[in-house]
Structures are given as structure tokens and as C-alpha cells.
């Protein structure tokens, strides 16, 4: 073979395998404007659908008149619930065991709810049609507060109350009130209460983790095309889980699954927003069936912010108990979770409140209890774990605030309090009081490295001086030191405890090696910017000894990719990455037999070395993987089938538990409330590092989304249920101007159960970042008697805190 590189070092470099900051193969098309996002898809005769949406948060629909709209040139159809009812499609199942209206059926439950679907020749005609659909509403009392919802006589979901007024059980057990969805418990209630009642020190705090939104730059959308001749439905869309969407579409439409092809093309960011199933998908499919033409539906930004997949909205109350010298003894957490009009949260079936039960965090807390009440209100449905794994962000925020509050109560340094309570390296695998088994960790090393890197003691001394200067009138700026230490729970997940709609959360990889030694691998996941085409090829390169540049990675087409559960919850590397390595190992096992045959030795007499099999003890006798690939297709090898292919469906034995240590140094102007991030240090331990460049990029991005959530981003409602933050004018997305430079660092603690030891990283910086930014703000005010203030810490709220603490006199 030509161009064979020979030195071992060159051979390793040539592979561009794991650990190499390989440049991304995706970038050529994106930097030249040649991405293929869903709105770029154009089909002959394609129509455009758009929604008439409710202006009211709660109202009865008395009538809908579509006649005038149908007169508009270019408008072909207007669908309402009445049109979908005969098909049984006016309601759809949610991912959380509830059901949701596809188009308003008798009443609306939140502002922006889908009432009618106008199908037209283009966007302008659709917009004209929408203007002319006349809906007669009768306003009903609006409930936006979940606590009020649990007291109110107003029944939000009449469909969930029996005729005699009794309240049947929900998908997750008994319901306490007609606006109550579920109660979910984890841990031991009585022992926890007892420990707390008898503790030397108890700190209590209530906190609201506000409603926010993932807001990827590309909104959600799809193109549905029903080919009536062949009975095939093709659906392109912004789907983070294309296979699951295919199954859902099949189940609700009755079209057999093999006749449905779901394609996720390039996706312009997801962050959890594109996991769920939205009425737009169903209506596009129906409209395509009705009109016989392809139908495109693309949200605008207002639709996106008002109606799809909010995140958080957790009212959390905690009690944490400790000994006088700071050893934590117990943790109690109650959450009132506002799920909006329908329970459409994207969580594994058995966890109606996601993995909130990771709320003991990185600490060895012997006794704990968690209780979550889900509640209906007149807000948009569709809670997702925005850039985190199923509510880990809420859990980590909760415990990292509770630690700070406890430190205040104990009059202790919060860094030291963390240190004395960390789970110790030798305790792993560690089973937490709320049930999860942490795979591996070395928290003390990471924490010490972080504190040393920022000169923590120096910072505290500087801060003390600043307080003196402030009191002496020499400065109006306070200094906050934000600390956070987090443990993520990612890699959902083991089929034994994680499923979505009954589909176990394994993932998959199928590899085909071509005769010339290049390859294609297809996976059940789908990148939304994480660089899968680059990194999965690196895993394979290291596993099978063919250069990453010779391996194509393909995802997102259900006709070609093996079944997988998609990309969210940082599950791609832990689950699909493992499937990739396992499929690679099957290839290698077959390659070993071929090599042995070609070298005329026994299987056990050859060993793998970078890109070849070498006869043990005779390094000059070898067959490269390229030669083996060719031989697989041109030799008749006794007992071995031709070809070189493998597939792996990987069910992980456990989740993975990446962790990290973050420090933020912030200045706060007490007169304006303006914050300035002077320094942000982020140490992440995600186990084996596949592509350091991409990891660093993920950390920058996650931290910036954390900054947004902590310092300003909120989906806010007024008392009438009007969304006050429906455009980017009011919904804060940071620009280059607001965002600091981040210092990144790492330790490496591989996952013991993962084939390559990788844990996943994409969401860690968000999970760890939010409490870090928030703690920085709150720490600045600690010397003046502040214990807790709610996010988002925008300038106005910070100013108000300063004012309440009497700092403006």
C-alpha cells in the first residue's frame, strides 16, 4: 500500500484518535453557508402551515369561524380540533403519561396555545389566513401560581375529573386535588425528619428556580411529506430523538413504523428544546395527508418562547442538618413543580421529577428525603431539562445553595464546609441516600486544584479588605466569590431504570468497513452542534486502527441508522460512544482472525498495535487494518464470512457521574446593580477526554448559558397569564459583550464501567455554572446579612437587594 507511515508515533498521529484536538469535519459546510437545516428543505409543491394561537391563558372556545380565512388567496385549508377528532388526533399522549390537546378542544389552557392550523402556499398567505380566523372566546379565571392552583376551586383540567367530581389517579399515582398532577417521593421520610429534629444545627431555606427556556438559535420545525402512492410518510425535523419521534408518530397515526422515515438534518442547537413532540408535528403530518402535498411548519421566535419546552419552574424548600463542626447529617427537600397546562415534561417514565433525587450532590449525606408535587397552572407545558440531565440543574442549584446557607449558619467558610463533607475517593462506587450509585470520583483533588489555581485565600483576603473599604466609603463595589462543586448524573441510561414512553434508553452504532479501509458508522444519536461526526470517528479510529479522516459518521435518518434514543442529557458519549467502542471491538475481533489467517499463525499469536495486528515477538510480521479490510472482501477464509461489519446496541450498566469545581470572582456595583465577572475558573472531570478542543468549547457554551439563567433570563407571566418575555427584546440572551473569558482546567477520573472511561461533558458547565454565578452574587452580600435571594440576578434585583440591606444610605 502507498503512503504507509511507519514510525509508531506517526501512525498514532495519523489516526487522529482519542485525546487529539481534531478539527471538526462539520465546519466546512457551516462556515460556507451550506448547512442543511430544516428550513432549508424545499420540496416541489410544498405548503406552509402556521398556527392561530390563543390570546388568553384560560378561556372557553364558543366558536371558530374559518370561512373568511379560506377565502384568502393561497390558503388551502384550516384545521381545527373538529377536523382532527374523527382521526383521534385532536389530543396526543405526552412524554410524561399525560395527554395534550393538539388543537384546542373546547377550551384553551395557556396563552399561545394552538387553536387552528392554517395551511397555505407560503408564509405570507398563511399569516393573512391567521388574521381572518375568528375565534369567540369566553374568558375563564386564570391561575399562574402553583400554590394558588392547589387551593383553587377552578378546575383547569376538566378532562381529568370524574363526573361525580372525584379525582381519579394520574399516571404517577393518586392526586390530591383537581389541579394536582403527582407526588413523587425518594428516600426515607421519618428517619430524615428525626435526624433534622435532633440535629445540633439546622439551616432552612426556600428558593424559587425560575421558569426559563433553552432558546436555541434555530427554532423548532418540521417538513411532513406523505407519499400516498407508496404509503410512505417522510418527516424532517429538529428532532433530538428521531427514532422515538418515529415510534410516537406511528403509534398515534396508525401508519406502520416501517412506512415512516424520520430525518433530523442539521440542527441549530437543541439544549432540550427539541426533545418533545409538539402539535406542529402532528398538524403538519395531518395537513400533508389531507392536501397530498408536503407541508412545512417553522416556529417563529415568539411561538418558541411562548409555547415550546420551558425549563425549571421549581419552588424548592430545604432543610439541612449538621453537627456543630460542620458534618452534614440530613437533608430534606420539598418541591412544588409548576408544569403548566399539560404534564408534557420530558423525563424518563419512572422519574416524574427527573433526577431531582440527585439533590444530595457531591456530599456524603447519610439521610435524605425528597418530595415533589407536580401542579397544573395556566402556563405553557413541556418542561425539559435545559442543558442538563433531567433536573440535575435544579438539584445541584438546591444543594449548592443549601451548603452556602448552612455555612452562614455555622459561620464557616463555604469551601471548607464542602471539603469536609465530600464523598471520599475510596467511597466509590458510592450509593447515595436517595438511591443512585455514583461510579467514580475524586472530589478532594479537584477542589484543592481549583482553590489553588484561583488563590482562594488571597481572594478571601481581598474580599475582606473590600468590605472594609466599602464601609469606609472608599468604594461602592462589592466583591463576590462564587463557589460550586457539582456531580452530574448523565448517560441515561440503563434500560432497567430509564425509559421514555416504554422505550428503554440504550443506544446503538453500526459500522461498515469498506474494502479500501475506509468506513461508515451510523448511530442512534443526533448532533445539535456537539461535533459527533468528529468525535465518534475518533473513538472508532482508536478502536479499529483506521484514520478518523477515513470514517464517515452518519446520524439522524431512521431508514439507515440503528434504533437509538437520541441526544439529550449528555447521553451521546456515555451511551452511543460506548456502543461505538463496542461495535469497534467486534470489528477488531473479526480482524484479528483474518490477520491470523493471513499471517498463518494462531489467533492468539497476534496482537493489536495502533493500526495493525502484529505477530507476538515478531514486530516485522504484521497486517495493517487497511490490508485486513481488503482481505475481508477478497479472500475466502475458512469459517469466516466475507465482509467487515458490526452493530452494537449498548445498554449501560449504570449512569456516569462527571463532576467539577468552579469559582467565579465578581464585582457588583451596589448603586446600579451591575455585575462584572472578573474571573471564572472551571475545572471539569469528564473521565477520558476524547477531543479536548471540543470539550473546552462545550464548557464555554454551557457556562454562557448558565450566566444567562443566573443573571437575567426568565420566562415571566403577569397575573392574567400573559407572557411578558416573548421576544429576544425581553428574554435575555447574552452577547459577546456581556460574556467573560473562561479559564478551563481538568482532572481525569475515568468511569470504571464505560468501555473507554468517558463520562460526557456538554451539560456539566451549565449545571455547575448556574449555582456558581448565583453564589457569587449572594456571597458579595453575605457580610451584610444576606442569606438567600432568588435568581435571576438582574441589575434591578441586585440593586433591590442592596437597598433592602441598607447599603444605599
Amino acid at each position, binding site marked *: 500500500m502507498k503512503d504507509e507511515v511507519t514510525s509508531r508515533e506517526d501512525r498514532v498521529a495519523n489516526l487522529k484518535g482519542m485525546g487529539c484536538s481534531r*478539527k*471538526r469535519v*462539520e*465546519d*466546512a*459546510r*457551516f*462556515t*460556507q*453557508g*451550506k*448547512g442543511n*437545516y430544516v*428550513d*432549508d428543505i*424545499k420540496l416541489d409543491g410544498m405548503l406552509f402551515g402556521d398556527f392561530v394561537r390563543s390570546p388568553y391563558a384560560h378561556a372557553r372556545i364558543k366558536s371558530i369561524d374559518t370561512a373568511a380565512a379560506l377565502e384568502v388567496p393561497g390558503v388551502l385549508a384550516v384545521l381545527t380540533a373538529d377536523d382532527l377528532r374523527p382521526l383521534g388526533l385532536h389530543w396526543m399522549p405526552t412524554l410524561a403519561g399525560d395527554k395534550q390537546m393538539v388543537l384546542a378542544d373546547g377550551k384553551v389552557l395557556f396563552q399561545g396555545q394552538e387553536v387552528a392550523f392554517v395551511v397555505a402556499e*407560503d*408564509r*405570507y398567505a398563511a399569516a393573512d389566513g391567521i388574521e381572518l380566523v375568528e375565534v369567540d372566546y369566553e374568558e375563564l379565571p386564570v391561575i399562574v401560581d402553583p400554590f394558588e392552583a392547589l387551593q383553587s376551586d377552578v378546575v383547569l383540567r376538566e378532562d381529568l375529573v370524574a363526573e361525580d367530581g372525584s379525582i381519579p389517579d394520574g399516571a404517577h399515582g393518586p392526586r390530591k386535588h383537581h389541579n394536582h398532577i403527582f407526588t413523587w417521593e425518594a428516600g426515607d421520610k421519618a428517619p430524615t425528619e428525626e435526624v433534622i429534629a435532633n440535629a445540633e444545627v439546622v439551616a432552612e431555606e426556600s428558593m424559587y428556580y425560575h421558569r426559563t427556556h433553552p*432558546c*436555541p*438559535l*434555530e*427554532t423548532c420545525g418540521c417538513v411532513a411529506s406523505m407519499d400516498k402512492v407508496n404509503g410512505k410518510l417522510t418527516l424532517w425535523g429538529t428532532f433530538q430523538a428521531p427514532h422515538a419521534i418515529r415510534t410516537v408518530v406511528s403509534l398515534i397515526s396508525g401508519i406502520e413504523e416501517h412506512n415512516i422515515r424520520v430525518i433530523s438534518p*442539521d*440542527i*441549530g*442547537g437543541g*439544549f432540550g428544546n427539541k426533545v418533545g413532540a409538539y402539535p406542529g408535528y402532528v398538524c403538519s403530518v395531518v395537513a400533508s395527508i389531507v392536501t397530498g402535498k408536503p407541508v412545512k411548519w*417553522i416556529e*417563529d*421566535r415568539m411561538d418558541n418562547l411562548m409555547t415550546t419546552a420551558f425549563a425549571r419552574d421549581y419552588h424548592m424548600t430545604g432543610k439541612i442538618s449538621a453537627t456543630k463542626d460542620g458534618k452534614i447529617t440530613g437533608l430534606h427537600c420539598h418541591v412544588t413543580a409548576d408544569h403548566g397546562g399539560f404534564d408534557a415534561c420530558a423525563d424518563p417514565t419512572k422519574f416524574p421529577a427527573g433526577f431531582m433525587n440527585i439533590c444530595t450532590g457531591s456530599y456524603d449525606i447519610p439521610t435524605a428525603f425528597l418530595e415533589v408535587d407536580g401542579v397544573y397552572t395556566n402556563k405553557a407545558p413541556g418542561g425539559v431539562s435545559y442543558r442538563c440531565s433531567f433536573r440535575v440543574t435544579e438539584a445541584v442549584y438546591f444543594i449548592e445553595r443549601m451548603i452556602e446557607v448552612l455555612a452562614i449558619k455555622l459561620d464557616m467558610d463555604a469551601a471548607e464546609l464542602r471539603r469536609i463533607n465530600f464523598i471520599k475517593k475510596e467511597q466509590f462506587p458510592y450509593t447515595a441516600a436517595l438511591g443512585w450509585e455514583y461510579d467514580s470520583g475524586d472530589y478532594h483533588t479537584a477542589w484543592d486544584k481549583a482553590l489553588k489555581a484561583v488563590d482562594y485565600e488571597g481572594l478571601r483576603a481581598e474580599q475582606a479588605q473590600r468590605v472594609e473599604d466599602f464601609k469606609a466609603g472608599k468604594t461602592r463595589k462589592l466583591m463576590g466569590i462564587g463557589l460550586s462543586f457539582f456531580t452530574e448524573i448523565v448517560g441515561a441510561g440503563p434500560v432497567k431504570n430509564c425509559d421514555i414512553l416504554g422505550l428503554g434508553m440504550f443506544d446503538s452504532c453500526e459500522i461498515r468497513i469498506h474494502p479500501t479501509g475506509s468506513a461508515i458508522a451510523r448511530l442512534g444519536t443526533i448532533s*445539535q*452542534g*456537539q*461535533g459527533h461526526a468528529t468525535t465518534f470517528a475518533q473513538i472508532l479510529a482508536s478502536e479499529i486502527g483506521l484514520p478518523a479522516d477515513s470514517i464517515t459518521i452518519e446520524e439522524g435518518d431512521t431508514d439507515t441508522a440503528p434504533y437509538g434514543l437520541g441526544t439529550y442529557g449528555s447521553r451521546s458519549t456515555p451511551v452511543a460512544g460506548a456502543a461505538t467502542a463496542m461495535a469497534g471491538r467486534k470489528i477488531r475481533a473479526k480482524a484479528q482472525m483474518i490477520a491470523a489467517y493471513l499471517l498463518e499463525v494462531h489467533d492468539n499469536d497476534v496482537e493489536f498495535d495502533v493500526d495493525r495486528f502484529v505477530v507476538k515477538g515478531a514486530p516485522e510480521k504484521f497486517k495493517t487494518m487497511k490490508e485486513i479490510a481488503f482481505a475481508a472482501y477478497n479472500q475466502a477464509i475458512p469459517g469466516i464470512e466475507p465482509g467487515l461489519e458490526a452493530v452494537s446496541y449498548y445498554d449501560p450498566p449504570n449512569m456516569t457521574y462527571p463532576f467539577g469545581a468552579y469559582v467565579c470572582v465578581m464585582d457588583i456595583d451596589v448603586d446600579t446593580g451591575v455585575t462584572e465577572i472578573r474571573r471564572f475558573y472551571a475545572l471539569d472531570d469528564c473521565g477520558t477526554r476524547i477531543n479536548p*478542543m*471540543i470539550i*473546552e*468549547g*462545550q*464548557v*464555554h*457554551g*454551557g*457556562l*454562557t*448559558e448558565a450566566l444567562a439563567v443566573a443573571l437575567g433570563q426568565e420566562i415571566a407571566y403577569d397575573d392574567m397569564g400573559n407572557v411578558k418575555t416573548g*421576544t*429576544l*427584546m425581553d428574554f435575555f*440572551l447574552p*452577547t*459577546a*459583550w456581556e*460574556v467573560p*473569558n*473562561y479559564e478551563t482546567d481538568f482532572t481525569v477520573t475515568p468511569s470504571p464501567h464505560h468501555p473507554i472511561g468517558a463520562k460526557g461533558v456538554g451539560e456539566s458547565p451549565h449545571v455547575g455554572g448556574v449555582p456558581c454565578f448565583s453564589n457569587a452574587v449572594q456571597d458579595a452580600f453575605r457580610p451584610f446579612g444576606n442569606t438567600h435571594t432568588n435568581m435571576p440576578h438582574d441589575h434591578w434585583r441586585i440593586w433591590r437587594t442592596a437597598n433592602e440591606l441598607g447599603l444605599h444610605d
Partner: protein
Amino acid sequence: MSNKMHIKLNVNGKDEEFLAEPRELLIYTLRERLNITGPHIGCETSHCGACTMTIDGKSVKACTMFVAQASGKSVTTIEGLGGPDDLHPLQSAFKEHHGLQCGYCTPGMITRAAKLLEENPNPSEEEIRFGMAGNICRCTGYQNIVKSIQAAATEMNAAKEAAE
């Protein structure tokens, strides 16, 4: 239809002529009519910058401009900056310095950055951050975007010097 207007545009060096309703937005014209899909739609309110292009020498967000307002003008999008055989230094720099992830903001980002470097070939980090503040990226956290622009500036300046 009678209310259509005669529109002339020069897009990436090519003359285009057609009839369009006066209310048609420029981004729609380019994407739907002329198949120029590099510029994206992220907000339709001039906040995100995904639709940024250069119109008669100025950076413009095409989602809030009527095509009628652009008639007679020349428009440059990412497609006009460079292709596979003649990449713009910014296109290479974004790849080299990991200045993108999902790529949705990237065409607008690069188009804006090209204009910025034309106006100020030696921007400080602060000037880059300020000059790019009209373009939102949800993935990268900007650090590597800034780095990419700095690297492209250095390269472009060196090339200019070598040419002189």
C-alpha cells in the same frame, strides 16, 4: 398581481430581477426565491444577527428589511465571501479555532466579522466584542469566536503586508 413591485438586486455579484410584493422581507426573498440559504432566521426582530448580510457596504439584518428597500442595492451573504476553492480567512479561522458548534449563527457571524475587519483591521478584544454584540451565538460562549476573528485579522494583515 398588480401590487407587485419591480425589484432589482445584485446578490453576491449576480444581478437578479423579479416582481415582489412590497411587504416581502429581504431574508424571505433570498432564502425562498433565490435559494440563498446561508443567512438564517433566528428571531425576525433584528436581535439575533443570524440573518446578517452586507448591503451596499453596511452590515444589515435582513429579517426586518423589505426587499423593496433593498432594490437597486448590492447584497453580500456568506455565499459571496468565499467558497471551497477560495475560503475567506475568517472561514478558515473559525474552523481552526473552534469558533462554531451548531453552525446556525455562523454565516451571520462571519459576514459581520468580515465587515468589522474591513472597518477596523486591528481590533482589540474589546472592540471585537462590542462590534459583534449584534450577533447572538447560543453554543460557543463567544470566546473562540473572538479568538477566530483575532486570528483572521492577523492573517489578513500579514497577507496585506506581504502584498505591499
